[in-house]
């Protein structure tokens, strides 16, 4: 019996241990900050490790993001945010940049830049077992190797372009930050803070307390300026060999960091012990703000600091020469140039001096006030709406809008103008009488076109990236519903009668792999605010401008016919991208014609307008700086006279037919986009987006009679020149297309192309975004182009332009411009937002090292191994098991994942329509990360996390 009970006991014990261990959840490590590490890793007996870090560039990595050239680097990385607020920049300039607030202990400060835990991992779980290296590693301690350093210290063209520093010598760099522990190490206490001299006096609060208000650009980045100064290193330098030498010379015995004599001028508190210090103060901050401005406990509150006299009364000291001379006079035998030193550490309490940048206007689209007296022009670059007096043809005002204003429309009564802000996901509401921006409406991702219904009760906003249409109640300025559009809704118009709005969608629907594109015209029923119909336009993409004939019988749509399935060699036969018009009849049928001529194409037809008498249509070609004048009677007669076969197969592809109905071309300035004809039919206005002007056309004469200057800078910068090159088809064979034709808004056109030289349909590749790509080289899915210069130069000449490559000036300008195309803010994780539950679980999957059954996932098969932050690409090629029938390669470049949700389809050939399909359909052998053990909810979580990157 005893044996029986003993057996039960043993089994129960084993079971409880095994299962208890299995179910004991591992605690999630959090960042604790360098000062927690310093509690052991400081002092001579630990090789002054903490001071070595504090005196290194790593400790200043956050602060340097305040420098003007950091903004330039950000610009060349397509980062629209301030560098100190950008996850991209902070990814290498701070620690735990991608962690959430709860993953950082209150002792952690991101302002400490690249600190211990950046390389060694978040420390909360191993900090207490550091005495045992193996145990510490089990608890999460990372002992980095050089490859880990390279994740940040790899070549970044954006940085080289700005600071032109030589390539980092990794061996030298490793030596310079070496911080070995002495063989006979011993943990010693941090030097004590000085005893208070006067307990009733103010206490020190520490520089991090000052940073709360004095950190940002509105205060001239004062904290960062201090952090980059030698004052901030003053304590740390006491740990270096030279300090020991000086101390010896000055008769200091022992360790300088423990010597009150040294500390008196190398720390804040020892300068004047005052009333002591609060816990927020750290001796290691060296000579901080309060060393000069006095202990801050009584004046540091924001309310007191806001009033200088109050602050002064509470102890804020005025800094004089004498303040500095207390320490600097004959310090270590050195002379002190007060004026020069003052300049060096100058940190004025004023907004950062704005460096005069060349800010263009970039007019995109326009709208006339209902009374016809004023023209409002949405200007993308200047974040404004420019008001034109139509009678005087002069600019009369400029109204601030949001970021990237794209389109504008008026309420039917003319009292309000609505402006879509593409980068902000907002609509600005402008009071027309006062010309003031009076409200902002939140809408969906990347709003483009917008229009009200006839009553003005509802405003329809096209959320281009979200494939949706926001319906806004104009009385409350709230979104009341969101309708499903086609793929990337772009522009919209209403027929002359009825209650409908027609919407163009610029990208093709998702179609079966290797089948021609099909685009959609979405029709909104404005009575019920529902989608009434969807008209499919076969063989097309880039459906953009749309206008109705005054009879209401048909609408015209500017479109491309991109033959992406044929090899690019057919370019020579003039048959890759053709440009034309769609005719959409009220019975839902469609026809298509080309505006190209055999030897001279009409690249990037962008917008269309029809005269009020219905005689003519004017179409802009942003790629060739022209307007085509279409005789509509001739056009409709030609279509009406065609057989069904001709209408379906001949007219959409026949480049000679345009001669029958295009009666004239009118030259414009650079990159004409929006076009509008006055209701009296006398004039047309054309927005020359890259000339900051409007061309005025006399409709009777069909001539440009005036150019209205919108007041942009007259100098053409290299970036602007590059922008013009990007949008111009001049270098393409017979001017068939521009860079913009495949990269509208600097992004993707959602198609796969066969651009290789074999000419037999091999190796189709998905189009990739240009937003923020500079540092993600090499380029091309096969990773064969090391730089944008090569990508846009020789490669483009071979495969696209054929005869006329960009010259050196054009090429440099083009690549510089491409680098500045901004990456829109992530819509699934606003800046600084915590992750949702699903996103957080997805992050765990992304970073996991074991399968659901507990098996170790080899390092190379983990998501984060190739897609590590901040770029989320290792910039090398891998075999993901995605080589298909038409592919000649098995290894493909690792794409970055930033805003990955916005660039379907996926994989090198665009075969996956959704993120899910990457793993449900195209990862059968777990070559693209180990994912086949994931449950469906885990895969959903992973995707929710990926959307935040």
């Amino acid at each position: 019996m005893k044996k029986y009970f003993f057996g039960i006991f043993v089994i129960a014990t084993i079971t409880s241990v095994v299962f208890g261990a299995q179910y004991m959840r591992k605690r999630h490590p959090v960042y604790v900050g360098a000062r927690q590490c310093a509690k052991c890793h400081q002092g001579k007996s630990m090789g002054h490790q903490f001071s070595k870090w504090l005196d290194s560039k790593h400790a200043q990595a956050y602060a340097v993001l305040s420098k003007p050239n950091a903004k330039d680097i950000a610009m060349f990385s397509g980062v629209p945010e301030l560098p100190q607020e950008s996850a991209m920049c902070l990814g290498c300039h701070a620690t735990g940049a991608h962690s959430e607030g709860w993953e950082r202990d209150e002792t952690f400060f991101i302002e400490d830049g690249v600190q211990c835990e950046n390389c060694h991992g978040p420390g909360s779980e191993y900090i207490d077992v550091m005495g045992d290296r193996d145990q510490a590693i089990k608890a999460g301690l990372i002992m980095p190797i050089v490859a880990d350093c390279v994740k940040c210290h790899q070549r970044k063209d954006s940085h080289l372009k700005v600071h032109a520093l030589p390539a980092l010598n990794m061996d030298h760099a490793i030596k310079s930050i070496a911080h070995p522990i002495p063989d006979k190490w011993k943990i010693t206490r941090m030097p004590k803070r000085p005893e208070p001299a006067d307990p009733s006096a103010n206490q020190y609060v520490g520089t991090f307390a000052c940073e709360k208000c004095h950190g940002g650009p509105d205060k001239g980045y004062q904290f960062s300026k201090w952090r980059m100064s030698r004052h901030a290193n003053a304590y740390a330098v006491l740990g270096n060999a030279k300090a020991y030498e000086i101390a010896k010379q000055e008769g200091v015995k022992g360790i300088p960091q423990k010597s009150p004599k040294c500390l008196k001028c190398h720390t804040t508190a020892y300068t004047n012990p005052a009333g002591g210090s609060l816990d927020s103060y750290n001796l290691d901050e060296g000579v901080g703000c309060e060393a000069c401005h006095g202990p801050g406990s009584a004046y540091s509150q924001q309310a007191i600091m806001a009033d200088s006299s109050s602050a002064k009364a509470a102890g804020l000291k005025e800094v004089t020469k004498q303040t500095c001379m207390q320490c600097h006079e004959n310090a270590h035998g050195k002379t002190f140039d007060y004026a020069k030193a003052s300049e060096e550490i100058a940190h004025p309490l004023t907004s950062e001096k704005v460096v005069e940048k060349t800010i263009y206007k970039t007019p995109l689209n326009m709208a006339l006030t209902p009374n016809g007296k004023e023209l409002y022009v949405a200007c993308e670059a200047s974040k404004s709406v420019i008001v034109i007096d139509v009678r005087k043809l002069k600019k009369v005002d400029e109204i601030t809008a949001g970021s990237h204003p794209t389109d504008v429309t008026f309420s039917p009564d003319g009292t309000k103008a609505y402006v879509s802000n593409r980068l902000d996901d907002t609509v600005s509401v402008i009071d027309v009488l006062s010309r003031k921006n009076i409200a902002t409406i939140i809408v969906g991702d990347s709003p483009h076109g917008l229009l009200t219904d006839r009553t003005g009760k509802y405003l329809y906003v096209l959320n281009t990236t979200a494939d949706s249409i926001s319906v806004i109640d104009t009385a409350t300025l709230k979104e009341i519903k969101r309708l499903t559009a086609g793929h990337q809704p772009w522009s919209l118009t209403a027929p002359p009668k009825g209650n409908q709005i027609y919407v163009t969608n610029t990208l093709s629907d998702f179609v079966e792999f290797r089948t021609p594109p099909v685009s959609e015209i979405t029709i909104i029923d404005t009575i019920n605010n529902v989608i009434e119909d969807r008209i499919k336009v076969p063989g097309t993409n880039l459906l953009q401008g749309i206008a109705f004939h005054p009879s209401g019988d048909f609408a015209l749509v500017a479109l491309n016919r991109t033959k992406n399935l044929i090899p690019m060699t057919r370019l020579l036969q003039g048959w890759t991208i053709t440009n034309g018009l769609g005719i959409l009849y009220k019975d839902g049928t469609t026809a298509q014609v080309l505006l190209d001529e055999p030897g001279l194409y009409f690249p990037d037809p962008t917008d269309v307008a029809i005269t009020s008498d219905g005689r003519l249509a004017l179409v802009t070609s942003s790629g060739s700086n022209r307007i085509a004048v279409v005789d509509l009677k001739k056009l409709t007669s030609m279509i009406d006279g065609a057989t069904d076969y001709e209408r379906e197969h001949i007219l959409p592809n026949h480049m000679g037919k345009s001669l029958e109905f295009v009666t004239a071309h009118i030259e414009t300035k650079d990159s004409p986009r929006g076009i509008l004809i006055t209701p009296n039919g006398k004039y047309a206005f054309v927005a020359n987006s890259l000339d900051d002007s409007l061309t005025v056309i006399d409709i009777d004469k069909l001539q440009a009679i005036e150019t209205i200057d919108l007041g942009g800078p007259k100098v053409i910068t290299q970036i602007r020149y590059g922008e013009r090159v990007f949008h111009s088809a001049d270098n393409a064979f017979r001017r068939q297309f521009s860079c913009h034709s495949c990269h509208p808004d600097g992004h993707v056109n959602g198609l796969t192309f066969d651009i290789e030289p074999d000419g037999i349909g091999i190796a189709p590749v998905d189009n990739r975004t240009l937003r923020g790509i500079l540092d993600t080289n090499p380029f091309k899915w096969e990773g064969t182009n090391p730089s944008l210069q090569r990508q846009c130069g020789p490669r483009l000449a071979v495969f696209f332009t054929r005869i006329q490559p960009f010259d050196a000036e054009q090429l440099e300008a083009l690549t510089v411009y491409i680098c500045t195309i901004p990456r829109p803010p992530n819509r699934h994780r606003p800046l600084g937002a915590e992750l949702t539950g699903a996103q957080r679980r997805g992050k765990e999957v992304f970073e996991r090292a074991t399968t659901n059954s507990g098996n170790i996932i080899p390092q190379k098969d983990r998501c984060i191994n190739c897609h590590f932050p901040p770029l989320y690409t290792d910039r090398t090629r891998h075999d993901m098991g995605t080589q298909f029938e038409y592919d000649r390669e098995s290894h493909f470049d690792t794409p970055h994942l930033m805003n990955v949700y916005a660039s379907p389809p996926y994989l090198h050939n665009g075969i996956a329509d959704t993120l899910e399909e990457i793993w449900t359909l195209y990862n059968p052998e777990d070559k693209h990360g180990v994912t086949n053990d994931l449950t469906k909810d885990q895969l959903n979580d992973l995707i929710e996390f990926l959307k935040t990157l």
Partner: protein
Amino acid sequence: MKRNIIVITFLLIVLVAQGAFAADKKMAKLPFVYTDWKHYTVKDGLPNDHIFAVKAYGDKIWIGTEGGLACLDKKTGKIQTWTEADGLPWRVVSSIDINPKTGEIWLGLFGGGLARFSGGRFDHFHQMNSGLVNDVVYGVAIENDNVWVATTAGASRYNTITGEWSIYTEKNSPMEEIWNYSVTVSKEKVYLGVWGSGVLEFDIATEKWKDYLDPDGEMEIDLYRDDGIVHVITTGVSYVEDVLWITTYFGMSRYDGRHWRGLYADETGLPSDFGNAVKGRSKNEAWFGTDWGVGVCADFATDTWVTYTMLPETHKGQVIVSRNNKILEVFDTPKGIPHNNVLWVEFDDKDVWIGTSKGLVLAKGTGYYEGLKLREVHEPKKGEIKTYAPGK
């Protein structure tokens, strides 16, 4: 004068005679009974006679069948159909709901996932191309901007604004079994009818779950009556006026937030305890689709029921009105439900649409009234009483 006297006398005689005749008619407080039925089958243009779902929306009746989707235009009487050849992603349409904000039609596809039908375009969501947990879909319901999907492997929620898919299974909800049969929403809650896990209630604001299980366990008898849901094998759930109406394979339940009431065929007008679907019309009235016809709890307060079945011999309809399990009226109608296996019930103002295994039927509600009304009791003709309730 004489003439007047004669006329008055005649009128008096008529009135007296009428009164005497009226006194012979039996009057009682009774529910409205549907007697005017119209059938729709493949002969009328439906793609298939197995009707799995019906949704009335404005002038249109959307019909999900085993062989495709159909839409009946009530104005014109015409039926339009969609099969896979027309772009319908999967032929078996098992459930339908319509987003009242956008007018988008969401289709549960049995074995094919989920589809959105908008402006003539079908968008297909399935377990390979989306976050949908499983392609065997039984139910779909719209909650604000979310689409809830009841599947054989859990429930999915799709946020149409953010594109986020959430999955609810035994991992994160009290779903003891994951076979979700139906889903319905109220203003504040989402209810899942789960085969083997009773009814699960999801609070939209707090995202917390609550389960309603059979306190008697999985026994197929109700040991202690009215102590909870009658059985955990739940097939349908409908919420109206703060009352939950529930079907199971072993009886039905009504829950008013405080009190449970079990409803069984041997005690009520239910033709069978095997419930396929339920639709509540009010807190007082619910229609239960069973494998032997429709049982209508016409007035819960008085336990008054109307049972509609099809007489197998004649294919005529039969109506039984009962109260407290006592028959008050029985009569035949020339038409009734076309098949006794009733899979769906949908209200369309006063009319009712019923999906069966052999076609769709419209019960015309001309003169419909709620609850009970004093009316003449239908007296059966000789030989008419022939109750057909084989499920009892």
